[in-house]
């Protein structure tokens, strides 16, 4: 608990300072509210639109989580396939890199053309952007297995399947955790970008669509949505980091984190 307070205090102080600076800058320089609203104005807009905002947060979070979880599964599965053959790797890797480097903003409209607007397309955009870190990390984890360990498995005549399941996959867990941390943040970005293009059909919409609307109607609401998106990103990133470190400590230490002699 004490540690938590220590960790949370500095960012909290900084937060208060930034809010104060923001407020006095707006007031002091007389900036127009449609350019930069005051913090209190943003808060007011958030409260006024709270049901819309909360629903949008929930919807975007759901899309991001669906995208993230499917990228975890499909990404690990792809890495398993990649680990099995150099030929598969060398023929597929260029496309995996293509997936990473092609601007997601450019792909999103294509996805809408192909699959129509709606939640599923938002998930798809989120999935596509968060897939790559998982594939590369887990693949390199699977390939980085100590050659002596591979020899050990060969010595005991392990089948290909046993090598994958009992050696490569567990060996790549720390790599998966590292990839998941990057990927979780990107899944949120992907969901919001996806909603720019594919989120406009639903009666009730996510943060991305709210941001788009905000540019036309109310800067304060726009700010509220942007801040909510940021908080959502931080929350998902934090949660995946926390889960990741729990998994890691389980991975390398006995259950319950016992100590020598325990």
């Amino acid at each position, binding site marked *: 608990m004490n540690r938590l307070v220590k960790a949370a205090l500095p960012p909290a102080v900084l937060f208060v300072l930034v809010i104060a600076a923001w407020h006095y800058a707006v007031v002091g320089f007389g900036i127009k509210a449609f350019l930069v609203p005051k913090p209190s104005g943003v808060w007011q807009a958030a409260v006024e639109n709270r049901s819309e905002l909360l629903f949008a947060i929930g919807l975007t979070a759901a899309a991001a989580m669906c995208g993230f979880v499917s990228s975890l599964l499909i990404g690990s599965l792809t890495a398993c396939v990649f680990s099995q053959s150099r030929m598969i790797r060398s023929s597929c890797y260029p496309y995996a890199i293509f997936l990473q480097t092609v601007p997601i903003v450019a792909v999103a409209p294509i996805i809408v053309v192909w699959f129509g607007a709606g939640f599923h397309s938002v998930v798809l955009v989120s999935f596509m952007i968060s897939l790559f870190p998982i594939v590369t990390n887990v693949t390199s984890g699977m390939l980085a297995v100590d050659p002596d360990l*591979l*020899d050990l498995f*060969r*010595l*005991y005549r392990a089948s290909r*399947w046993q*090598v*994958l399941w*009992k050696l490569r996959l567990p060996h790549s867990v720390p790599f998966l955790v590292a990839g998941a941390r990057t990927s979780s943040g990107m899944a949120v970005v992907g969901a919001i970008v996806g909603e720019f293009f594919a989120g406009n059909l639903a009666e009730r919409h996510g943060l991305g669509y709210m941001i788009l609307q905000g540019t036309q109607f109310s800067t304060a609401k726009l700010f509220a949505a942007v801040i909510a998106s940021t908080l959502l990103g931080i929350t998902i990133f934090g949660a995946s980091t926390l889960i990741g470190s729990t998994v890691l400590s389980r991975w390398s230490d006995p259950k319950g984190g016992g100590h020598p002699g325990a």
Partner: protein
Amino acid sequence: MSHEMSVNATRVEMQFPSGQLGVRDVSLSVRRGELISMVGPSGCGKSTLLRMIAGLMSPTSGELQVSTASSPLPLGEGGRRPGEGRPALDSQNKDSAAREADSQSESQTHRVPQPSPLPEGEGTAATDPRIAFVFQDSNLLPWRSVFDNIRLPLELRGVPFGEQRAAVESSLKLIGLKPDDSAKRPRMLSGGMRMRVSLARALVTHPELLLLDEPFAALDDLLRQQLNEELLRIWTEQRWTGLFVTHNVAEAVFLSQRVLVMSKSPGTFIADIAVPFEHPRDPELRSTPEFAKLTGEVSRSLREAAR
């Protein structure tokens, strides 16, 4: 046990795809139940030779034969034959039919002309289940407990869990590990303990040929001596055939019945020094003049080898 394996190598040569020679013109004859040490300058090919004997790679020329007196052989607790309980193997193994037939009969032979060295892929090793290998670093799986590490070879062979547990427990006891240790992860163990676990894992299958590649190189001298004594005690009890690679002359002499000295790279054997002390050996043996005389002889031969 009366089924220990013997090893016969005739003019074995290993040339890597890079053109580098691993060993050249190696001839070696290890009798059943013999414990032999191999010393030689770094890079002379000791590991290469052990890996060939283990079946992890094939010689590019010469003949290497690993054979037993009687067959089929009991393996582990269940008296299972090599090949049983591993259904996934056959489909993977190109020459598995031939190999399987081999291990049923008297011997397993690598002859010239050789197929190209074993591919680096999985599930393709033409290894003999009666051989165990102890690597230089303990080579344990960090995500597995001591117990789960030791049972790995049995698990890979599809031995039922109950049998695995019994075998692991007796192996733990044999190697001087407490039952409490079995839940720990490798990273919580000292270097000496890790090496014990590694030994226990190698012994859990009741191998008939144990190949040890500088297993104690990373340990301090006292620990090394302790483990030497334990290894020797276990060998005296079980009498498997053993090939022990080391850089430590005292260790080589203390453990084995013969010390083979290899020349510098590409290595070949240049000396075969008999160690006449009988087993069981007393730790005090190390302070006798006869012991000093022999280590002196081996050291001299090693100096020649390095020239």
